[in-house]
């Protein structure tokens, strides 16, 4: 190895050390230590053994309320992700391929609510959905709900909040991949007599799948960690694991159990996303044949 090359690498190490040192010390090592933390024996037991340590995981999965909360923590974000995809894909297409000249400006506008604190979005939805709030009043006028029936404290309210918070991420990811498709390809398809359905099935959808997968990662995984949304908009009727973790940190001070639930949540979120990504990739491969 040449002298210059070695000096360059030493310089690179100096440049990289602070940033990645910080991520290593505050993200990677703590995530790894979460497992150790969750396996520390409970305060009451005193003696530590592996069986006792795994006991915390066994108890979590044996407990029926915990299982219900786990299912809600995965299905509510999953529904929100699919809604973001259903609303966001056509929107990204419209911005990237139909209103191309104004597409970028419109994306900027779409970004604005993302930068306004999401707590304020939740707060606004609380006002809109309450009895007498504009949305509830509109739904009552249309006869969809009773006049005194609140739209709050439901899975629908939590899902709606998640869609509001995360839709811009989905649109941005898909926009990037749709924008790269050359117009000549679409024109050629149209010229050869392909209808909208075939253009979508054979060109647009398969080519947008990488963007869709990235969008799902940016929506589904963070959404599983919600705690303010179910707390404020879900009320006491439903709960997500984020709320459980928060209660263990701030109310019962059961830190090893908080570590256990955090780990269960993270692993389930990543597995759920992996399943979603596999299904999406499969759809791309089937379309390509």
């Amino acid at each position, binding site marked *: 190895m040449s002298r210059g090359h070695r000096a360059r690498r030493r310089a690179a190490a100096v440049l*990289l050390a602070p940033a990645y040192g910080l991520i290593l010390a505050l993200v990677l090592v703590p995530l790894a230590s979460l497992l150790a933390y969750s396996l520390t024996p409970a305060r009451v037991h005193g003696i530590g053994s592996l069986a006792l340590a795994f006991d915390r995981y066994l108890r979590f999965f044996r407990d029926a309320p915990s299982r219900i909360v786990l299912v809600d923590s995965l299905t509510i974000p999953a529904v929100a992700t699919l809604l973001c995809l259903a609303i966001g894909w056509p929107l990204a297409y419209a911005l990237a391929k139909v209103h191309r000249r104004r597409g970028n400006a419109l994306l900027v506008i779409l970004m604005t609510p993302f930068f306004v604190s999401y707590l304020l979005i939740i707060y606004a939805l609380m*006002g809109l959905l309450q009895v007498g709030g504009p949305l509830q009043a509109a739904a009552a006028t249309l006869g969809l709900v009773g006049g005194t029936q609140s739209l709050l404290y439901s899975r629908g309210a939590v899902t709606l909040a998640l869609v509001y918070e995360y839709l811009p991420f989905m649109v941005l990811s898909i926009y*990037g991949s749709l924008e790269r498709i050359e117009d000549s390809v679409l024109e050629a398809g149209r010229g050869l007599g392909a209808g909208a359905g075939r253009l979508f099935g054979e060109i647009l959808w398969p080519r947008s799948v990488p963007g869709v997968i990235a969008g799902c990662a940016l929506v589904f995984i963070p959404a599983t960690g919600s705690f303010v949304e179910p707390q404020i908009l879900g009320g006491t009727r439903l709960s997500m694991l984020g709320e459980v973790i928060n209660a263990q940190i701030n109310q019962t001070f059961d830190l090893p159990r908080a570590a256990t639930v955090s780990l269960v949540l993270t692993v389930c979120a990543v597995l759920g996303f992996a399943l979603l990504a596999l299904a999406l990739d499969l759809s791309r491969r089937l379309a390509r044949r």
Partner: protein
Amino acid sequence: MSAPRRRGARAGVLRRRLWGAYTTVVFVAMFVPVAYLVLMSFNTSPYGTLPFHPTTAWYARLFHEPGLAAITLHTLAMSGVVALACAALGSMAAMGLARGGLPRPLVALLRGVDLVPVTVPWLVLGVTMLLFLLLIGSGRSVLNLYLGNMVVVLPYVTILVSARLRNERFEQEEAGAQLGGTPLRVFLAITLPKLTPSILAGAIMAFMVSFNNFLIQYYLAPFGTATLPMEIYGLVRAGVRPDINALSTFLVVASILLVLALDRLVGIGASLGAPRER
């Protein structure tokens, strides 16, 4: 012009109209909550319900809220420090990745590491950091609050500056080096000016995200220290409070200005890690 072709053109216009209608509907729906907050900040009813009777009383009350100004200033200062530190560390990391001559798999690994703080739910990150800090005998503190906010937004700067380094050609750097410039001089005279827009964009991004990062602040702020999002959370939990509407109107306006600044510095597509050839 032949008849089928004219029919095709008319179908094209119809197609554009339909897509335009769809886009409008989604955009209007997206802005309903924000518009509602701004509207209600001028409404007399304290419960966020119609009818609309205009007033500016909530703004007057907001300015008399004790402590809110100090909390806002503290949160601004914190986000500023975090943004500056991230701008420095993130640009350094991006330079090291792009120009360090490191083996490709290592560079790919480090770029993957950058995605961890961005995708892991912030609740889990906040709780994990707190548990780890307690384990090593530290815990909630101002220093940890700053470091925790930094580690979450640092990757944004690295990703943005990396995208710029990849898209730009840097023959001038080579020329500068061959003419005998030291690496530092080449960097200051040629590379840094070219990177400035994306470093600034990264810093603005870092500022906005750490200003709003309730979950990280909630778990790392020392007891007795509140940030603005923590204060908003407290107000929201207490129920409907009209002065939050007035406060959010200010935040909405500030956000719009910062988003516009971000877009002028780099295309918005590049600012969330989806670099575009320009």
